[in-house]
């Protein structure tokens, strides 16, 4: 699933699609529910793509990306509260924090495979949540923190209309997709693919598997931490249990990529386009009946996809078409 290059028809389709994405917010109410969901689709597609850089390319399934994401959200918001630093600069700091954390957790875990790696990263994400909850003097603890309200404007990344948020998320998604694509087609991408398919063989051919994994993981951690900043500015309020959520962030970003197709550019886009609207719809229709039902649907979809086609819907579609 590489993006179409030379083929003229694909190019036209891609151009029309891009145009539709740019025009879309002007066809919807500026503060409406649908536009809000569209923003979340773009944000989660980007988060999932960031996860895809580490997990999709190297095959190391992380269940702890909430650790980087939450750290990013807290970094920029705390800098904004205490030093009145613009979230745009907060993005840079969050990126460094995410990269540093990713490098830190890579050191003890990079030799682990499969289940063991998933377990270790799960513990990392949960540890971050516990730290954020108990380090109240820094994070405000379980009560959560709010982004201080300011005059709407570009400098502090606060807007009344949802349209600027939409474009920010769209750019973020484009950046993560391009990063994913460039890494995948680079020499690093080839090394990652080699170690994903056969780690020992790759190592014996001179691939420095440790460095390759470290680079992919650092890029992935930095990007999702920066997306945490956008989340904070979009939501205005969050607490440790939502920003570092296992089900809400770590599992969800992985699920989106898996449903679409792990390791492909389009996978996270397809997954997010499918999952978030379904979640929102079930939330709207079922939550009045009983709490938890929409999340149950989310889990059931995950089980169904894994049992029917573990390689994702893109693959399912290809096999059906054949």
């Amino acid at each position, binding site marked *: 699933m590489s993006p179409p290059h030379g083929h003229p028809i694909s190019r036209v389709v891609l151009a029309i699609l891009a145009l539709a994405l740019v025009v879309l917010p002007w066809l919807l109410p500026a503060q409406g529910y649908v536009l809000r969901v569209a923003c979340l689709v773009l944000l989660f597609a980007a988060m999932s793509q960031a996860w895809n850089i580490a997990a999709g390319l190297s*095959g190391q*399934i992380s*269940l702890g990306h909430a650790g980087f994401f939450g750290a990013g959200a807290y970094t920029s918001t705390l800098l904004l509260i205490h030093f009145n630093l613009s979230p745009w600069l907060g993005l840079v700091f969050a990126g460094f924090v995410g990269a540093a954390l990713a490098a830190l*957790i890579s050191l*003890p*875990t990079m*030799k*682990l*495979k*499969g*289940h*063991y790696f*998933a*377990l*270790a990263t*799960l*513990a*990392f994400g*949960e*540890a971050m949540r*516990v*730290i954020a*909850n*108990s380090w109240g003097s820094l994070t405000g603890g379980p009560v959560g923190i709010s982004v201080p309200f300011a005059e709407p404007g570009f400098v502090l990344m606060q807007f009344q209309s949802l349209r600027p948020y939409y474009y920010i998320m769209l750019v973020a998604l484009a950046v993560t997709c391009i990063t994913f694509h460039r890494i995948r087609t680079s020499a690093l991408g080839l090394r990652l693919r080699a170690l994903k398919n056969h780690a020992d063989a790759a190592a014996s051919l001179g691939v420095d598997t440790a460095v390759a994994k470290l680079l992919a993981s650092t890029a992935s951690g930095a990007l999702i931490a920066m997306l945490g900043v956008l989340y904070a500015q979009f939501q205005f309020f969050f607490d440790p249990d939502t920003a570092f959520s*296992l*089900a809400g962030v770590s*599992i969800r970003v*992985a*699920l989106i990529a*898996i449903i679409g197709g*792990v390791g492909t550019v389009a996978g996270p886009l397809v997954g997010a386009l499918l999952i978030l609207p379904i979640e929102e719809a079930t939330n709207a229709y079922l939550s009045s009946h*009983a*709490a*938890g*039902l929409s*999340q*149950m649907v*989310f*889990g*059931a*979809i*995950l*089980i169904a996809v*894994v*049992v029917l086609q*573990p390689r994702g819907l893109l693959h399912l579609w290809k096999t059906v078409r054949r």
Partner: protein
Amino acid sequence: MEFLQAVINGLLIGGVYAVISIGLTLVFGVMSIVNFAQAEFLMIGMYVGYYGWQTFGLDPVLAAPIAFAIAFVMGLLIQRFLIERVINAPDVAQIFLTVGLLIVLENLALALFGSEFRSVRTGYQTSALSIAGLIIGVPYLIAFAVSGVVGILLWAFLRFTWIGQAMRATAQNSVAALSLGINIRRVRQVAFGLGVGLTALGGSVILPYYTASPTAGAQFVVLMFTVVVLGGLGSVLGAVFGGLVVGVIQSVSTLVMPIQLQNLALFVVFIAMLAMRPQGLLATR
């Protein structure tokens, strides 16, 4: 003295950790599946204990066999219709099938039972024995004793019954077991049912000093994995050892750091264990 008291508290609670984690290690040993949803059966066991007490006035310890039976049947069905399909699938499919189960079970409980914290009242809840200056809480002692009995029963089951022996054979070499005429699909079903049943049993047993809620299981996920990784994934005896060690680590860590960070100590031990000795502390390799 304070230290000794912490160690004893840790051992008492660690005995229960051992029983709830044996199920996880048993499933891994027999079919090489890491069940991320295992802790959800602890939560289910807690609710069985709670409703047994609330509806029939049954002591949660006496409701434990019912919790075992319900989880056992659920386990048979889940193994038969879901897990069996990914037995030979890549890791990612296995991980996300059980992660999906975790989400479904947790939210099913939320939909059925609501988000309230539920606890039981028993006559012995606040009683304690005082031996040589050390205080031993009666509910902890009972839970520990039940865990010990269950552990011995499980040992006898694996050692002396045909299906128990078949289970150990399958864990050692499933191809050889199959060629000897063992129905390994049946063995896997029983192993999975037994595994989640033991965890549910533990959930009911700890209810006198715990509160049931839909997220009660999630709080035990990392703990249970720490137990089995300490003892070596797949080793039943290792889980007993790991359970006691984790209980003591948890209990002693509260002497030197605030109680909210109790789990953090566990996470650090867990990641360090995975990084340095993923085969477990007891393994000779």
